[in-house]
């Protein structure tokens, strides 16, 4: 049986045109998806049953026991950390926030080590953006800054930008000029019309230089900026100002390099400047499939998109203080619930090591690098495969994940609901 228009849950592109062929409960073939989709949908690394660490190794336990123990651990903790959330659906994310509220816990999501700095920049200067279809249908200039879509968002260019035909861009690549800015000549750079090779860590200066040119002050620029000849910058600024519709996409090259949110802020302000000449938008390339969803859900419930601390009874937000890596680095949390993410693999080791010191519970379908660090893991459904629910694409468009397999795993929303209810019951509210 072929299920059409399946939504791939892997990256922020949230391609919803996959055709998946299933036989019973096995996925045989994935059409239209990229290699990452193929791997995500056809993998088989799922933990069969809940496990608990013992003095000598691991033992399997029941869901009932695991849930009760999880609630007990979280209730006993002074400062629990609830982290992750990006690979599951909004329904689970929502319950997670309510659990944190009940416990007075800190809840954070993977933005914290990905586009958190972009959010900080947006909180300073705003976000002039659009949905991806605006880019597909109108953009004659596309800029990829500090990102490598060929590797991390393989279908971005074919679904939304360079290679996509649009209403006003019928010849796709022929009608578009692609500019790539990176420290090295990546595969994405290979297809660019203009490649700006920038010295590492110097995006801020180059963005400032472009802003100067756009404001008509290009004459102040030295011959070379961050390893780039000023002529190239003049040329690129001209391309941008003469565009009918320009779209900038940026990634971890800006958020993870020194300057962090200041780099992103400068890029946003460049976009603002360009809007005085023509139409320009800027958007982050979100990594996980539903990380933007966790920002949306956290925000409409608490007011803040990540790093929310309920310890004071109100929702409190202070990145650097209430962010997961910092809390772990300071050894500040005394229990952790990790859902749909892998800090064991993706956090600096000094932060990840703390997870092994405290009672850590993991709710994740797979054996991950966090599994060895936790006290207890519960497998669950995979949103987009055997669980349906809401996800938010990198541009904010909400799409419902399809469920096209049945499994015996519980939905993580159900697991979380049971934990939530148990906590409420014990608290007597």
């Amino acid at each position, binding site marked *: 049986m072929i299920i059409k228009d399946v939504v791939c849950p892997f990256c922020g592109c949230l391609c919803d045109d996959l055709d998946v062929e299933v036989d019973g409960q096995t996925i045989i073939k994935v059409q239209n998806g990229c290699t990452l989709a193929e791997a995500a949908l056809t993998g088989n690394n799922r933990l069969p049953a809940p496990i608990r660490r013992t003095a000598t190794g691991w033992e399997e336990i029941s869901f009932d026991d695991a849930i009760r123990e999880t609630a007990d651990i979280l209730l006993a903790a002074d400062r629990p950390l609830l982290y992750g959330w990006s690979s599951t659906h909004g329904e689970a994310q929502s319950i997670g926030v309510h659990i944190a509220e009940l416990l007075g816990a800190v809840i954070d999501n993977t933005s914290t080590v990905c586009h958190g700095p972009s959010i900080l920049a947006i909180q300073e200067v705003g976000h002039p953006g659009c949905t991806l279809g605006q880019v597909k249908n109108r953009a004659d200039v596309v800029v990829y800054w500090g990102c490598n879509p060929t590797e991390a968002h393989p279908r971005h260019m074919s679904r939304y930008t360079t290679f996509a035909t649009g209403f006003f861009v019928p010849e796709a690549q022929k009608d578009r000029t692609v500019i790539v800015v990176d420290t090295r000549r990546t595969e994405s750079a290979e297809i660019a019309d203009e490649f700006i090779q920038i010295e590492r860590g110097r995006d801020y200066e180059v963005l400032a230089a472009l802003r100067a040119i756009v404001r008509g002050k290009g004459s102040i620029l030295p011959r070379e900026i961050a390893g780039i000849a000023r002529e190239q910058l003049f040329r690129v600024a001209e391309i941008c100002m003469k565009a009918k519709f320009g779209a900038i996409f940026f990634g971890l090259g800006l958020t993870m390099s020194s300057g962090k949110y200041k780099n992103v802020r400068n890029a946003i302000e460049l976009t603002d400047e360009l809007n005085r000449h023509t139409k320009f938008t800027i958007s982050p390339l979100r990594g996980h499939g539903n990380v933007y969803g966790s920002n949306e859900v956290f925000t409409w419930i608490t007011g803040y998109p990540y790093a929310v601390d309920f310890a004071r009874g109100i929702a409190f937000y202070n990145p*650097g203080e209430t962010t997961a890596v910092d809390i772990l680095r300071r050894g500040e949390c005394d229990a952790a619930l990790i859902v749909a993410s892998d800090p064991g693999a993706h956090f600096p080791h000094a932060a990840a090591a703390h997870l092994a010191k405290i009672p850590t519970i993991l709710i994740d379908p797979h054996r991950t690098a966090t599994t060895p660090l936790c006290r207890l893991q519960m497998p669950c459904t995979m949103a987009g495969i055997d669980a349906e629910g809401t996800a938010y694409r990198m541009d904010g468009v909400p799409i419902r994940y399809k469920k096209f397999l049945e499994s015996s795993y519980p939905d993580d929303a159900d697991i979380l609901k049971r934990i939530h209810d148990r906590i409420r019951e014990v608290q007597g509210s």
Partner: protein
Amino acid sequence: MRAVLNTGRNVPQGVAVEHKGSPDYRAAVSVCHMNPVDLMELGSNEGGHVALMSRAGSVVLTTRVAEGMNRGEVFVPLGPYANRIISAETHATGMPDFKGEPVDVVPTDEPVMTIGELMESIGGVWYDH
């Protein structure tokens, strides 16, 4: 040799990311991509091991040539190996210095740890079923 560390996503890492116990994942993320001239000057060959050392720790990786890599730069895919040498300092932004960390690159005969060994070295207990 002194170098600047870049970490990030790539396809092999992304394909294997949901199978962290697999040899494919280890092969994808325990790699240090280097400029070929740098590798040569180091006196090493592709496939040989190097130890990367930073203020946050050290890790042994397998080298791989990357034609587009700049001199003086190395690329390690996001993952537990890269995170051995990334500091948890975030400068009050919440975001560690995943890109731009200065590292020393030294050829070595030390083996590359397995994921299990890596996680056990920070207090974990590997799970095999």
